[in-house]
């Protein structure tokens, strides 16, 4: 039972960090570059995509045994288009200012490859709850990435932070950051940084897990490894 719960929630965490749609899977690049001229735009675009992702994943998962394999892609597109239209309608009514800024990209959520990729590779093969968790995880990861990108581009390009003017940046701001070229530049640099940091963290977690496994299966070997590590620590400590 415990394992089942872990399996259910695993897609949530892996979607945010390990399978981050923007920096790891490099999916949905078009809206990523187009709307991240401001942090708030990125945040709202990410949240809109998350809503569509969660809902479409849920419906596709529920219909996975009904939808024939031959027409699965048009069926997925129909489901995704329905939810992206709902988001567009709601945003137009209740958030008109935001709709003015990114109306076109909301409609284009339907062709965002993240949605079709998750429908095809995950929700069409898995039950409801893991599919919802996958949608939520990937969506939150996408939101986080878009907000971060928007934050950097807005700060250096427009001299503001979440729409609030930053005084000292007014003479230092560089318009290129909010232009497409700047978008590619920031995207590339952030991708490098993300993979360096997350890659290093993953290595450490893997090493920790290996040590724990050895300690459980072979206590003698674990003791020897510990002694070796203590010796190394002593060596490096001495150098300091």
């Amino acid at each position, binding site marked *: 039972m415990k394992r089942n719960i872990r399996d259910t929630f695993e897609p949530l965490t892996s979607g945010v960090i390990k399978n981050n749609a923007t920096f790891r899977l490099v999916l949905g690049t078009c809206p990523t570059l187009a709307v991240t*001229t401001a942090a708030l735009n990125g945040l709202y675009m990410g949240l809109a995509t998350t809503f569509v992702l969660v809902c479409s994943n849920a419906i596709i998962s529920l219909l996975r045994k*009904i939808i*024939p394999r031959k027409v699965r892609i048009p*069926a997925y597109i*129909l489901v995704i288009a*329905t939810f992206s239209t*709902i988001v567009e309608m709601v945003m*137009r*009514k209740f958030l008109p200012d935001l709709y*003015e800024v990114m109306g076109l990209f909301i409609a284009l959520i339907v062709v965002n490859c993240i949605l079709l990729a998750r429908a095809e590779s995950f929700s069409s093969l898995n039950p409801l709850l893991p599919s919802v968790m996958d949608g939520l995880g990937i969506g939150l990861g996408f939101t986080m990435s878009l907000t971060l990108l928007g934050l950097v581009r807005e700060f250096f390009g427009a001299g503001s932070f979440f729409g609030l003017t930053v005084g000292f940046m007014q003479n230092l701001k560089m318009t290129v950051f909010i232009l497409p070229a700047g978008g590619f530049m920031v995207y590339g640099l952030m991708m490098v940084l993300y993979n360096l940091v997350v890659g290093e963290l993953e290595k450490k977690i893997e090493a920790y897990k290996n040590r724990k496994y050895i300690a459980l299966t072979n206590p003698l070997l674990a003791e020897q490894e510990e002694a070796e590590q203590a010796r190394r620590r002593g060596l490096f400590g001495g150098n300091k």
Partner: protein
Amino acid sequence: MRKIKIDKESIRLIVVLAVIALISSLLLAVINMFTQVDEAQKLRDAIGEAYSSPLTDRVFDLSNYENLEKTEVSDMFEAEDGAIIILSKSTNCYNASKGVQLLVIIKEDKIIDIISYAHSETPGLGTNALTDSYLNQYCVYSVYDFGYVEGRLTDTTPVGKSVPAYTGATKTSNGVKDAVTAAARAYIKLVKEA
């Protein structure tokens, strides 16, 4: 005559897709009932926020009005204090499909206020030419200060004066100038000459 055979599998594919499409349509129709935007009311609300005097019921017939090139005057209202409020759009900007839409308020032949109503220009770039401080530079002009050739815009620089384009937002600045020129022309044609 050759008989067309339709196998069960094909029918199943069609039925499944049709049912999904039908349910989607129903869901969207229901949501549309609650989220439908009344554009006319939205425009009147925006005018109410921008100008304190209430609007009269005067209707301007714009159906036969010929717009200048790349511009469109879509709505005109009269306020109780005699001011004319014009919704003017120019597609001479970065996002031509949406255009730059301005509410130009004219009273006694003078432009007294300009408000950005709708646009899709890049934040921090094109939007610099749509700020109140930039738009208010036009508020010193009379409607007769704008130059144009009938049917198309040529040189829209106000006679004897000019509003410089915003550096980095030249195209949007030109769009603003065209929209204001179109509003001034509409005022002359439909209010003064009518």
